[in-house]
């Protein structure tokens, strides 16, 4: 069975230890986490986990069922029509030649998030693939540091 990339959104009670239950489930059963984003759902007792994982059909089905089996899990959403975004921050030295940077930022809807005496930090929020392309494009400016976040996803 072929492995596919899946985005799973899990709504869980926002309580002590819930992250370790989910991370432990993946570790203990040998599932892989590609990225993980957690934040409270506003005005509720819940948190949303957005998990990007890989596996064949049977593995994905088990992941969904096992996630659902956790007592604090309220809802497991998968395979729906997700709008999915990632973000990245890239720190560039001011000593670099920034020829073309404006055009690239414009093309990726990126902005300058911060600047210091010897660096600037640029950021983008976009699809996973495009974040990858952006980071690649930044390589010619000799980035000092790159921080890439996990996916956040919302049903259409």
């Amino acid at each position: 069975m072929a492995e596919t990339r899946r985005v799973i959104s899990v709504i869980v009670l926002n309580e002590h230890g819930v992250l370790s239950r989910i991370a432990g489930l993946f570790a203990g059963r040998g599932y892989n986490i590609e990225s993980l984003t957690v934040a409270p759902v506003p005005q509720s007792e819940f948190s949303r986990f957005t998990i990007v994982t890989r596996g064949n059909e049977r593995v994905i089905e088990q992941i969904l069922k096992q996630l659902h089996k956790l007592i604090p899990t309220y809802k497991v959403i998968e395979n729906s029509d997700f709008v999915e975004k990632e973000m990245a921050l890239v720190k560039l030295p001011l000593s670099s030649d920034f020829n073309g940077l404006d055009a690239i930022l414009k093309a990726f809807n990126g902005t300058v998030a911060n600047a210091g005496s010897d660096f600037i930090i640029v950021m983008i929020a976009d699809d996973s693939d495009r974040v990858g392309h952006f980071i690649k494009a930044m390589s010619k400016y000799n980035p000092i540091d790159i921080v890439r976040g996990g996916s956040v996803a919302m049903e259409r």
Partner: protein
Amino acid sequence: MQLSGAQMVIEALGREGIKTVFGYPGGAIMNVYDEVYKQNYFEHILTRHEQAAVHAADGYARAKGDVGVAFVTSGPGFTNAVTGLATAYMDSVPIVVISGQVPITMIGTDAFQEIDAVGISRSCVKHNYLVKDVNELPKILKEAFYIARTGRPGPVHIDIPKDVTAQIGEFVYPKSIKLKTYKPNYNGNPRQIKKAIELIAESKRPVLYLGGGVMSSSATKPVREFVQLTGIPAVETLMARGSLCYDNEYLFGMLGMHGSYAANMAMSEADLMIAVGARFDDRVTGKLSEFAKHAKIIHIDIDPSSIGKIVDVDLPIVGDIKNVIKDMIPRMKDKIKKESFAPWVELLKRYDEIHPLGFEDSDEVIKPQWVIKRVGETLGDKAIITTDVGQHQMWTAQFYPFTNPRQFITSGGLGTMGFGLPAAMGVKKAKEDKISINFSGDGSILMNIQELMTAVESKIPVINIILNNNFLGMVRQWQTFFYDKRYASTDLSMQPDFVKLAESFGGVGFRCTTKEEFSEALEKAIQSGKVALLDVVVDRLENVLPMVPSGGTLYNMMLDFKE
């Protein structure tokens, strides 16, 4: 009502109707023990090891069909209890284990007897709690019992820091619990049930594959009715022994690695498998690609994650077995013709005649299988049987005539040596009118032998029957079959004097080298009303047969072993 955390624990147990608690005190749980001393709700039985406390609560739960409870202290008290939790988890047994923890102010400082207990138990419990606020304790206690006994049952662990057991809070014990995030599905989807009946009606060679869920769901009554109504042959897993009475004409025994030939052929030649609360364990299926490969599969289980985990299923039904089978019965009556399965049943009976479960008896040495049969003939349904793990466990499953559900109590999933004796104590506390027999081996019995002290002190007359072959028998058998008889670390010739050992604890001991001695000793042990230990010297090299070697196919069993 204002209570301390420790008092809340006692009060909750009282309201849950708990009559027996097993445990072992220590620093972090002393506040709770101080309240145990003052209360009248339950009897506390002091085991001699925390693992045994949890196994005893587990045996109690399995025999009674209700939640068992154990108390342990922090650190090593808790880590000792982990094997007990894992054993209960693998066999879906409802227990609540309450552990002490160092005070909240000291958590994370590597304090004396501190360990991250919920971190350790997380992967071997249904759910766990670290209590951080005394005011949350009543709700947590109620939830713990609710979660343990509902849905697919399982162990729940509550870790309570010492300062929480001392703090005073308002005790409001919820009457009922409704959790937004936990709603087991009890009733099977009617459309799926209808389809199941159609599949059964179309089939020529259906087989019921009964698993431990039949016990958890207390579904033997409807399952037995279903079998009598439809005439569909049934096979049982280790955990399901006693689902049907041993002499039921449609029961073809246990399946799997040491199952009967007829049971394994039933699975191999069936055109429809109805899996009922079973989970396709590797000890059952053998080589997966060959397992029941002609059969369509209906899988009834309360746990959706059990369905489709190992094999693809044609028709899943998520629900409580008792309810689903009850729903099916009235709709089967005009759809299913018992006679249509008669040729199939006849074929399986023929298989059973060709290769019946048996052993070659001897007059020179005691055969272990004979001992099991002898106890079965003597006590039948008057006894509840526990076992340890190994050859004796398989022989018990094969040869003891089980009449009732919850009559056979064994560690199936985890295979925990040392389970038998403490579990037998729990059994006896749950069912005082029954005789509690623990079949063990000379390897297993030493893994919790200290519990003889508990049994003697608390006057729990458990009868231990050691099938003593001076070997770690099951491993020795594999070494004989698959490792050219290189008996690495399995020779247990060095042994204690089991009779004196039993006597030193205040029990009675018997050494039996002949059948007559055994029969006499069994009689004396029963009459004595004391904790007994029968050291039965059996044929050293007897093997458990038939056998499907690990990864082999069910239809290609090893029926005997010739040198």
